[in-house]
């Protein structure tokens, strides 16, 4: 393997590697280097997509829609997922967020002389899991490489990563675009998934010429997911990011919190006149803390680049890293890349190959949970509308709850409605998650059944829901305790109606002389008398009879 010792400079995974190094790759790629700008463009034979018949829809910006008539945005996203393992990637230091600084350290993650890394089996497990979930081909043999650069939060002076033989590659993810942004399905390619370690945390103090480093995070395992440049708008990017979050949470490999930093997305974006095959100059955007920020940053950047194109200043667009300024709502230059970074990758000599057996991969595949995409399609097949589908499948705990409820035989549409309206509102108000509520799926199914067979009315159902959510208990128990059984005996209802009518002669007079809206008044009175238990349909039927009778 003499070729591995002398390696061409490769800045990041977007500017792809030559064929000689990648005999495992299925698609062939060509690399053309533009000498003037420091950009590497790629034309992939597998990426010759048909020109779009309609530009991706945007949520309101006419300016953007105008731009998108002339230009196409080409967007790729690099996602770093911090794994929720108990230990770091290459040593047994605890991996716990929020510990006192510089307490989860040891000679290995501190890069002290003589210390040697040992890979955690959990990291491989999670890597295979995520690779399979993203429909990738797994490399049964992969390796680690050293990515070398100097920075205060990088103790060893290199990051252990995977360069040319990642654990997984060539996958895809299917997403549903939310209805308010046009709806529809999209498939985005996944170039690769690889394992690596995180760096420490660098804190810049405003005062003084020094910064501070906390190495608790150094060595924490990461999975990096690189997408194909298939994304075409901010909306699509936000949905891609959300789906990544959904998937890692469904799999249980990460808690996917952008705020905590356990899910980080960097966007690579360029635009090109529609119809042009060559990619434009690529700009990287960092410092995105939310999917909405990602969407807005992309919209801003498309506008910025298009403006320069329109002014004939396309050469002002340079390969650089820009930061998203949430306050100013714009991207700002962080630094211009002076040439491509030279990481001097070489195979990590301290770590052996990562070898996967087909049995191992198959056993993990068999243990994968139902993934968001499969759930969405199943819910759709059950007859639920796309809005309901997207809500229910978004949070794995909610989906599991829903599945349990309908598993007990409850009507699908009713279960969906309860979860999406009253229960969702309760969770939001109380700031709880579905796992915190005292109402068990069994009891929700009971509630739905009790309303369906008219034991109690819908209104009563809503009333006891609140108590069931907060305190638990059984539906049957509560019905007995509070005497909530619906009154469905027509004789009884008629008695109450007659009483109300006799007590309200004035309103009766008004009704009979034309004010038919007063029916509501009578309904209300009877309901009050029956403590809400009168069956509404029966009540109205009999009431109308009595009101319209010639006395």
């Amino acid at each position, binding site marked *: *393997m*003499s070729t591995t010792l002398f390696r061409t400079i490769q800045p990041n995974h977007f500017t792809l590697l030559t064929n000689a190094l990648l005999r495992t790759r299925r698609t062939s790629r060509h690399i053309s280097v533009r000498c003037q700008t420091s950009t590497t463009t790629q034309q992939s034979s597998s990426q010759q997509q048909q020109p779009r018949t309609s530009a991706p829809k945007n949520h309101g910006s006419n300016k953007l829609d105008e731009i998108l008539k002339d230009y196409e945005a080409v967007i790729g996203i690099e996602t770093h997922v911090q794994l929720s393992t108990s230990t770091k990637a290459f040593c047994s230091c605890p991996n716990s967020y929020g510990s006192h600084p510089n307490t989860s350290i040891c000679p290995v993650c501190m890069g002290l002389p003589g210390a040697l890394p040992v890979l*955690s089996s959990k990291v491989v497990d999670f890597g295979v899991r995520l690779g399979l979930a993203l429909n990738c081909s797994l490399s049964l043999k992969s390796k680690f490489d050293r990515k070398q650069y100097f920075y205060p939060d990088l103790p060893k002076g290199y990051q252990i990563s995977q360069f040319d033989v990642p654990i997984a590659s060539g996958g895809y993810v299917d997403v549903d675009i939310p209805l308010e942004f046009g709806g529809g399905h999209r498939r985005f390619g996944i170039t690769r998934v690889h394992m690596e370690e995180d760096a420490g945390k660098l804190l810049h103090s405003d005062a003084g010429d020094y910064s501070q480093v906390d190495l608790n995070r150094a060595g924490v395992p990461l999975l990096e997911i690189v997408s194909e440049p298939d994304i075409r708008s901010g909306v699509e990017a936000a949905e891609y990011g959300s789906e990544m979050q959904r998937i890692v949470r469904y799999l249980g490999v990460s808690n996917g919190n952008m705020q905590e930093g356990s899910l980080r997305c960097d966007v690579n974006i360029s635009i090109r006149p529609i119809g042009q095959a060559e990619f434009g100059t690529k700009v990287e955007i960092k410092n995105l803390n939310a999917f909405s920020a990602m969407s807005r940053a992309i919209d801003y950047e498309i506008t910025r680049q298009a403006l320069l194109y329109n002014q004939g200043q396309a050469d002002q667009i340079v390969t650089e890293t820009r930061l998203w300024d949430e306050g100013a709502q714009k991207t700002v230059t962080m630094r211009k890349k002076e040439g*491509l970074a030279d990481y001097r990758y070489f195979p990590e000599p301290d770590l*052996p*190959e990562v070898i996967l057996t087909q049995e191992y991969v198959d056993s993990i595949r068999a243990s994968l949970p139902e993934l968001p995409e499969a759930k969405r399609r199943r819910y759709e097949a059950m007859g639920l509308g796309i809005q309901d589908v997207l809500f229910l499948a978004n949070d794995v705990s909610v989906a599991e709850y829903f599945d349990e409820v309908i598993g007990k035989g409850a009507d699908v549409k009713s279960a969906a409605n309860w979860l999406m309206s009253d229960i969702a509102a309760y969770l939001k108000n109380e700031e709880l998650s579905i796992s915190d509520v005292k109402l068990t799926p069994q009891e929700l199914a009971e509630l739905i059944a009790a309303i369906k067979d008219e034991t109690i009315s819908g209104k009563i159902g809503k009333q006891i829901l609140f108590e069931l959510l907060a305190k638990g208990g059984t539906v049957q128990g509560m019905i007995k305790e509070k005497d909530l059984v619906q009154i469905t005996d027509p004789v009884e209802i008629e008695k109450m109606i007659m009483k109300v009518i006799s007590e309200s002669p004035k309103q009766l007079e008004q009704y009979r002389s034309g004010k038919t809206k007063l029916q509501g008044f009578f309904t209300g009175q009877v309901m009050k008398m029956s403590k809400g238990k009168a069956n509404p349909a029966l009540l109205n039927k009999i009431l109308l009879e009595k009101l319209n009778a010639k006395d």
Partner: protein
Amino acid sequence: MATTRALLAIRSASPPCIIRIKASTFSSSLSFQRHGAIARCFSSDTNPSVLQPPDVSRLAETARISVTPAEIEECGPKIRQVIDWFGQLQQVDVNSVEPAIRAEMEGGNLREDAPETFENRESIRASIPSFDEVYLKVPKVLNKE
């Protein structure tokens, strides 16, 4: 690792070219030279004499080692010798050979995901000269290059 071993080989082989480790590296701004990389990627049928000569000053920059022009002159040919030595491997025809990832046959050596607190963290922290109570104090560096 190969580079350091090579440098050690050079030192022991002939009158030493003195290499000083740069004490403070953070203030230097790096401008990479795009030409003269140590070697380009090539397939196995490239003639070894086509190997690029080493760009010693760039090598030194990337390793954060300061070298004088005299040292660059001196080290160049020596590093070249090492490269050429490895370059002999280019003469082997490996077109019909499946690339091996590593030389050894067994992979594995994986660790259980069971946390262990390192006993002597205090001495690690104590050995850091710039350790400031809770954090490591470092010069303010904003760019990675």
